């Protein structure tokens, strides 16, 4: 299957979801205890993950997966978002955008994600240190 024919569609739709993420993060910043933004951001990131994996962009999918993991734990914890968490998610959304642009341009390997991936994992462990993520198998959207 020739995936290149879907690259433009992937890029356009990913950008829509990233714009939605940024808007929802701003909403969340205004009301850190609100449950709606976290669910909306989770869905957007989840969609990007599925599309990126389908395109074979493993690094984009991995970054989206780790964001999803953090969001899932935050959602289950039902506690207000800290400023630190919000700044990390803004940064991760920017990194996701860059990784997507590079991947579509055929330069996925140039995406420098090491630091943001480590920070996402650290933050996820902090949100839910024990028995994390609820059900086995990672993030879900029940």
């Amino acid at each position, binding site marked *: 299957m020739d995936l290149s024919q879907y690259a433009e569609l992937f890029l356009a739709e990913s950008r829509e979801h990233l714009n939605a993420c940024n808007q929802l993060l701003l909403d969340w910043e205004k009301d850190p205890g609100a449950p709606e933004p976290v669910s909306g951001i989770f*869905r957007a990131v989840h969609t990007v*993950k*599925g599309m990126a994996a389908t395109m074979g962009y493993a690094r984009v999918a991995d970054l989206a997966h780790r964001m999803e993991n953090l969001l899932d734990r935050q959602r289950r914890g039902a506690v207000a978002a800290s400023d630190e968490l919000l700044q990390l998610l803004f940064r991760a959304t920017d990194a996701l955008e860059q990784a997507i642009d590079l991947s579509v341009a055929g330069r996925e390997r140039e995406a420098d994600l090491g630091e943001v991936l480590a920070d996402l994992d650290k933050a996820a462990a902090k949100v839910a240190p024990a028995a994390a993520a609820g059900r086995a198998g990672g993030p879900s*959207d029940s």
Partner: protein
Amino acid sequence: MGHTVLVCDDAIFMRTMISDILAQAGFEIVGEAETGTQAVEKYKQLKPELVTMDIVMPDMGGIDAVREIVKHDPDAKILMCSAMGQQALVVEAIQAGAKDFVVKPFQPSRVLEAVQRVLG
């Protein structure tokens, strides 16, 4: 004429790809839905022989849509499309009445195998 299919996913990208895979294999795509609510409405309206259903969708999720469709038509043939790491939700979808599942990223051959299993 090929079997009729309703493709449900909130991402245009995924709907386009699934539709292409199935259309190239001779299936007839009769409709697309981007939310669970739309999926239920279009199922009742179009009576497709097969439904592909994403799990995470806005409005009504895929699992609730499966429940609604099966309530309306216990013989509905629904194939779940899940992302990696959603095993628990896939089990829930099968319990709700879905017949089988495929995991993203999709390989056309896997999708077609699963579709054949669902159609029996």
